């Protein structure tokens, strides 16, 4: 199922997509509530590729916050609800690397029931669904700006998401891709870590923000808006960084030329 490639990142085996098969959208709670435009962009992108979409309205959360805090019994209730809601769908696409990793990798640790893990194994982050399953790297988008990308830890280290978003960005017309120095360093969000160890979390975020400034980009993007919520929150407090816009990759990929 997964082995470690020569670049040190995991390489997953992906299923093929049967044309016409429904894809269910898993929209993390914070995107649903605070960044709906990301979910809208995700829906538009997939719709344009001819994919029939479903948004199961009973969905709530993947359980990650409770799981990471050690409250596994509590997390399990939420995870089992997730499994119940998404059971009917062969493909579940999510615009978040960290939530997708929770489903595909950590459901197994949190819940001994193999039926739950089986549903979790069908969750794919948006860029890996586009590139590894649909084989699409050019969406015909146009975004004439200097863009740098932050690579979220869970998505990269657990799911191997790195080349996919970069190749998608590089195919966006008129987009100037700026390398982010120390791209692999954690931004310091870490979920509840951000408020349990705020001093260190903020220090890490400031390092990430300084690197974003160094990249020379006007826009910073990622497959994880949770990281950008934290780093963006820091950048907004610094006058020299306020010109840098924060956008989820779906929003950039959804632009038209």
């Amino acid at each position, binding site marked *: 199922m997964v082995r470690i490639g020569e670049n040190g990142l995991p390489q997953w085996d992906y299923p093929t997509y049967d044309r016409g098969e429904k894809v269910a959208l898993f929209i993390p709670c914070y995107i649903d509530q605070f960044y709906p435009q990301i979910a809208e962009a995700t829906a538009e992108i997939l719709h344009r590729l001819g994919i029939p979409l479903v948004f199961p309205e009973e969905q*709530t959360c993947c359980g990650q916050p*409770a799981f990471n805090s050690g409250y596994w019994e509590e997390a399990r209730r939420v995870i089992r609800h997730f499994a119940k809601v998404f059971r009917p769908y062969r493909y579940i696409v999510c615009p978040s690397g960290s939530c997708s990793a929770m489903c595909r990798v950590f459901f197994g640790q949190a819940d001994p029931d193999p039926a739950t893990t089986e549903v979790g194994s069908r969750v794919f982050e948006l860029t890996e669904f586009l590139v590894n399953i649909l084989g699409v790297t050019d969406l015909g988008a146009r975004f004439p700006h200097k863009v740098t990308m932050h690579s979220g830890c869970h998505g990269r280290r657990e799911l191997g998401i790195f080349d996919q978003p970069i190749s998608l960005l590089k195919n966006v017309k008129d987009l100037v891709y700026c390398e982010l120095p120390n791209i692999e360093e954690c931004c310091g969000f870490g979920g509840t870590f951000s408020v349990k160890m705020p001093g260190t*979390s903020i220090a890490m975020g400031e390092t990430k923000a300084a690197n974003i400034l160094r990249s020379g980009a006007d826009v910073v993007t990622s497959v994880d808006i949770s990281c950008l919520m934290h780093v963006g929150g820091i950048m907004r407090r610094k006058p020299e960084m306020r010109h840098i816009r924060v956008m989820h990759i779906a929003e950039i990929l959804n632009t038209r030329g």
Partner: protein
Amino acid sequence: MTAVHSQQVSLRGAAFWKAENKGLAEPHGSKALGESAERSSKHNRQIAMAIPYWEEWREAAHQIKRYAIFHLDDLLVQFEKNLTARGCIVLWAKDAEEANQHLLNIVKKHNVKTVVKSKSMVSEEMEVNHVLASVGVKALETDLGEYLVQLAGQRPTHIVTPALHLSASDVGRLFAEKLGEPFTSEHEKLTDIARRHLREEYLRADMGISGCNFGLADTGAICIVENEGNAGLSISAPPVHVALIGIEKVIPSIDYLPQFLNLLARSGTGQKLTTYTHIIHGATPGRTFYVILIDNGRTNVLKDPAARTALFCIRCGACLNACPVYRRVGGWAYGWVYPGPIGSILTPHLVGFDQAGKLPFASSLCGACGEVCPVKIDIPHQLVHLRHRAVNTKSPVRSPLERLIWNAWSWAMGGPLRYRLTMGFVRIGVRLAKFLPFHPAQLGAWTRGRDLPLVPPTTFRSWWRRYGKRFQQPSG
């Protein structure tokens, strides 16, 4: 459950231990340490990635260690038998206290007055130097970094480079104060001073204490790696050599050693091989060689099937260098012998969750540690596993209040209506936050350095309810 004396674990700046310090450990570590750890990490990672067999190597080492830990009893018996056949005197110690007792007996038997010591993490668990000092035996650390922190009366801050928090001027001042040497901050001169003082100690020491990197069960040999030559001198100059060996250090066979040597040097210091690799076969004629096999809580790790991989550790320090938290808070914040990610997953077993239960929370779960570990310890998975144990047992993080909150949260996330209700309140709360005169608790923890996200007028759900229909059919 082996107990550790409380005075052994109360350390200056042990931010993660205090129950009342609700996770507000601040990034107060030495900047030099952080920068140096980062440089090492990048450099060593580059080296590793340039080797086409690196992932194969890690997997092979992992499997060997897995076998070793799963057959630890048989291997220890075999190791003891072969060590004894080579003239070693093998002693067993359930805990640090007993190991120290053995040491004191040896000191008495051989009329030992001075001891020279090379690097051994298990000896730090035992607090050997204090124990020997209490019976009037002078025990001198010979590894330069350990020598410096010993002179300064401090704890080491890193497994491989213990004195990285000291600048050259700090060392110069230390030598001036403690050794009566004229002040200098030139590295060559400082090293010369240390060499001169320590050389005299090697020549007159009655006993040498070492650790052990690998115990070879099938040949009854031990392997020690080092760069300075201090281990070689410590064990070959004095008439008595005592090797302190944690029971998890045993590997089944000398056949496997090249694999570990290739991984350890690169992960620890970015070298192909360390300057000295010693493979020691028993006591040389005329000399006495003791081996003390030490448990001190390692068997506790075995009791937890999900935690056993923590015993695979070969003490390379790569996880420390890679950890963004360690780089910022430094080694002392972890409160005991082992800092960084390995400390977070080992210390709770060795010292008890009641004292160290908070350590697994000192992490953003970024996974950098697991990525670089040469024996593929699944550190990130261990961290969340230990968090789960910590909140369910007597520990500084067990909190009925927090349990209640997560219960309420899981209720709220248990169904769509409850979810929408709860999130509605959250949105209102975030909107109102800017009107509050101050931000308490978690809210304040966020806003002390970051703006809160803006609250949009609608949610995705409401958008989908209005526009979602057209997405259900594939586009034309």
